[in-house]
């Protein structure tokens, strides 16, 4: 069954070293994994282990120092509108309204105004921000800003969306809400998602497959296929058992 699915991301022996005056710093070491079409993959690992670097490599914002990354059959050489990003901190364009932020991607692609407005509206509605189109990001709460960021990534209709700890800065309450939201969004608009987190609960709640990473220099430590029925219950025995298992395994990576 695995063979039938289309491979979206292929990481082949990827490594990344940062060169600085203080010395070379190997962050990603011989990383190999695949992501298949419409799969929700969570990259899960301890803090500071180089998870964000992996996403930047996939997005093409950084270049690997060894190996190669292939996305949809093409080698990654630089950033592309086919690969959307949602970042850790909110980084909306503060000088644009919610609508202008969300329609930014299509606008850069030269999509006519009427079409891109409609598309942006669809995703604004999808993340539950109807009525806030004309607001500026400063007026929104952290959770709402992150929703705009997600809508902005989706509105460009990329093949692949990378999310880099998008809820890391939110309070616990909002975090649960946003996790449900992402679950809902990815149900109604299925896309390939690579989601980075260091929160085991979040990983199990969202993932089709969890890739557990080593501590820095990072590489794949272990993979878990999560086949609990959705929407998942944080308190179900299966959920808790898996959580225990993954958390225990994470200690081994340190």
């Amino acid at each position, binding site marked *: 069954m695995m063979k039938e699915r289309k491979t979206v991301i292929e990481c082949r022996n990827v490594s990344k070293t940062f060169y600085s005056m203080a010395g070379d710093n190997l962050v990603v070491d011989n990383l190999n994994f695949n992501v298949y079409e419409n799969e929700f993959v969570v990259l899960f690992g301890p803090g500071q282990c180089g998870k964000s670097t992996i996403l930047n490599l996939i997005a093409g914002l950084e270049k690997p120092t060894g190996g190669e990354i292939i996305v949809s059959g093409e080698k990654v050489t630089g950033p592309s509108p086919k690969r959307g990003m949602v*970042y850790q901190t909110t980084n909306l*364009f503060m000088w644009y309204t919610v609508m202008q932020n969300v329609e*930014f991607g299509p606008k*850069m692609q030269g999509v006519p105004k009427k079409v891109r407005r409609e598309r942006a509206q669809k995703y604004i509605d999808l993340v539950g921000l109807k009525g806030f189109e004309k607001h*500026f*990001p*400063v007026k929104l709460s952290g959770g709402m800003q992150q929703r705009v960021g997600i809508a902005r990534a989706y509105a*460009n209709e990329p093949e692949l969306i990378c999310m880099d700890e998008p809820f890391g800065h939110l309070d616990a309450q909002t975090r649960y809400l946003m996790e449900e939201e992402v679950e809902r969004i990815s149900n109604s608009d299925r896309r390939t998602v690579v989601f980075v987190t260091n929160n085991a609960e979040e990983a199990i709640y969202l993932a089709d497959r969890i890739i557990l990473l080593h501590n820095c220099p990072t590489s794949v430590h272990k993979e878990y296929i999560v086949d609990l029925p959705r929407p998942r219950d944080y308190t179900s025995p299966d959920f808790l058992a898996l959580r225990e298992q993954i958390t225990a395994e994470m200690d081994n990576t340190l």
Partner: protein
Amino acid sequence: MNTEKINTAKKQKRKYQIISVLSVCVFLLVWYLATAVFELAPSYSLPSPVKVFNTFLTKLHSKAPDGATLPKHFISSLQVAMLGYLLGAVIGVPLGIAMGWFKTVDKIVRPVFDLIKPIPPIALIPVMIVVFGISIKAKAVLIFFSTVIPCITNSYSGIRQTKQIHLWVSQTFGASNMQMLFTVASPSALPMIFAGLRVAMGSSWMALVAAELLASTSGLGYLISIGRSLLRSDLIIVGILCLGMINIVLTAIFNLVEKRFVRGGKDE
């Protein structure tokens, strides 16, 4: 609950307004007491506010002793200031943006710019008089210089302070270099650019008055310098207060324009 909150804010605002008016009144009262009542200074060196106000009223229509009415002086100054300022802004802001974004432009312009930058505009007055004579041109060029430098400096640093992550975001959306400049770098630099325009407004006004004091045939600076040579301190004070008030009005207009253009507020 909510209405109570708004009222408190309003009350506070009104309180501060009252305090502001009071402080101006106290200033005038002290001035009046020191001159008209206690006569601490002879009236030809420091006239009372009443006398200054009377001079102001007569100067609104009378041409004596300097050859023009106050509104005429005012318009003459404002004209020159606007001409030089707009020219400086129109050239300075795009140039600063280009220097911040394109390395080649920076490399070409910077050597000349670094040479001109530290020169106080007032030091250029003699050169301007030699080149252009005592004309509107000399003053306009002078104001142009005092405007263009803060405009370039601020636009440049505004562009340079564009957040890397914003550039990354726009790259992942496939923005071209020019698209990034116009949709990301320039709008994010806008608050800095406006700060530069504000600084330029102050320094250009200063340069203008200095030029008018030294060599001119009209304008508020000219009025002040005539007042000095005739020992008419009331005239001098009328000129000075007019300068102060013009600045208040211009700043208010500037704030409105800034509010219109700088939208969305600051990043956290």
